[in-house]
């Protein structure tokens, strides 16, 4: 007897919930840190209103950790949570390359990028039609997960390291590649909101499409359906 295959590997599920806690703590403590200096600059330096490209609003207490302005305590939470966040992301990348989750479920094919195919997928989403065969995720899902794993989350780590004065002496090229410390700080802020944007869409889509099913799946692992298998695998079985 083989156990029925799970839709989500244990590594995926462990990472998913660890990451959720981390990004919530990092985001909310980050908003408190943002309140410490509410201007963003490009380049190496910037400190006065005339250098800024953006004046950021003051984030209210209910959005921040702790729920009152404390730069030192917010930094405590941010500095601690950066560790599980970055290490879990690294481990998840290794796990999904080893168990081929990334190659099998998230990478896209050239065919999926054809404008007609992309348009069809967008129209299906607008109809709230999320049924699809030939893989776990449809094209837009793959692109979203690919962006989050490949760009948004790693950029949070890299821009965070680039603005740390203790990192720059041995990783100076990183700060340089990102356009200088104040650019890296601006990018840190921008990508934080990109992650937040993904979070909102992700949760909204789960809510409109079988929320309990998805929630249970991400906890217990769920069951791998026939339609979850990549098209190539199905073909391989039938021929």
């Amino acid at each position: 007897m083989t156990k029925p295959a799970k839709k989500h590997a244990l590594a995926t599920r462990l990472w998913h919930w660890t990451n959720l806690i981390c990004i919530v703590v990092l985001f909310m403590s980050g908003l408190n840190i943002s309140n410490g200096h509410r201007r963003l600059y490009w380049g190496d330096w910037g400190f006065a209103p005339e250098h800024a490209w953006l004046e950021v609003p003051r984030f209210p207490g209910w959005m921040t950790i702790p729920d009152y302005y404390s730069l030192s305590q917010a930094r405590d939470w941010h500095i601690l949570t950066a560790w599980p966040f970055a290490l879990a992301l690294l481990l998840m990348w290794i796990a999904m390359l080893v168990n081929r989750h990334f190659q099998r479920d998230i990478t896209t094919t050239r065919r999926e990028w054809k404008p007609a195919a992309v348009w069809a997928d967008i129209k299906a989403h607008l109809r709230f039609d999320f049924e699809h065969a030939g893989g776990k995720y449809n094209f837009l899902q793959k692109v979203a997960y690919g962006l989050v794993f490949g760009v948004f989350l790693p950029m949070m780590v890299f821009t965070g390291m680039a603005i740390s004065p203790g990192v720059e002496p041995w990783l100076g090229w990183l700060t340089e590649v990102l356009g200088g410390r104040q650019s890296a700080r601006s990018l840190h802020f921008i990508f934080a909101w990109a992650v937040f944007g993904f979070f909102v869409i992700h949760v909204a889509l789960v809510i409109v499409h079988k929320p309990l099913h998805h929630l249970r799946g991400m906890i217990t692992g769920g069951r791998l359906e026939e339609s979850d298998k990549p098209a190539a695998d199905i073909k391989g079985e039938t021929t």
Partner: protein
Amino acid sequence: MKRRNFLIAIGAGFVAGCQKIGDTAPGKTLLEAAPNWHKAVHDALGGRTALAPEFGPEDVSPYFRGNGSTNPTNGDYQAQAEAEFANWEIAVGGMVDNPMRLTMANLRALPQRTQITRHDCVEGWSAIGEWTGPQLSTILDEAKVQDGARFIVFRCADNLNGDDYYESVDMLDAYHPQTIVAHKLNGEDLPIKNGAPARMRIERQLGYKHAKYVTGIEAVASLDGIGEGKGGYWEDRAGYQWYAGV
């Protein structure tokens, strides 16, 4: 409106939970230990010699923002400023075999280092300036620091909101080649708002480590019993991290 209230409730609940965890003994220990994990990695990869980036003259920002104390009014600082710091002395002491009192003339007579570096405030802003002064290592070598010393404490003339400012670094940063006692900014005598007549440059850490208005350099074995024992004014007063390289 309801959904918003729901979100606020979740947020508030989460924050309250975090604050509870932060108040427990293990939570506190973790929060206090985390900066040291970063420091261990930074020290292992950067070590004693890795330099903070240095910039060209064209990168210097149009002016240099002053923060914290910008014009001390306590003690005899104003009289010292009036006398153009002719009577200023920096006491070098603590665990040293050769305690000294350095005047500004003594300081200027030592071999000088000039560096154009970026100053990063814990609040988030940065400014670039050209700093000149002797390396702290030159002064410490002259004073002959004893074996058991583990930290260098900087005493300052400014009293901010009732407490004397002070800071401290470990020996790694104390002997770092870019750690200088700066008395010039952009080729001119240090302005009062930036710490005249002499301030520390601790280039691999955030701005609050760069003690201004320096009156004393002290080698110690432990930070206990100095201020509230956390190694600096902001560390004692508001719980800022002693290691400010993150």
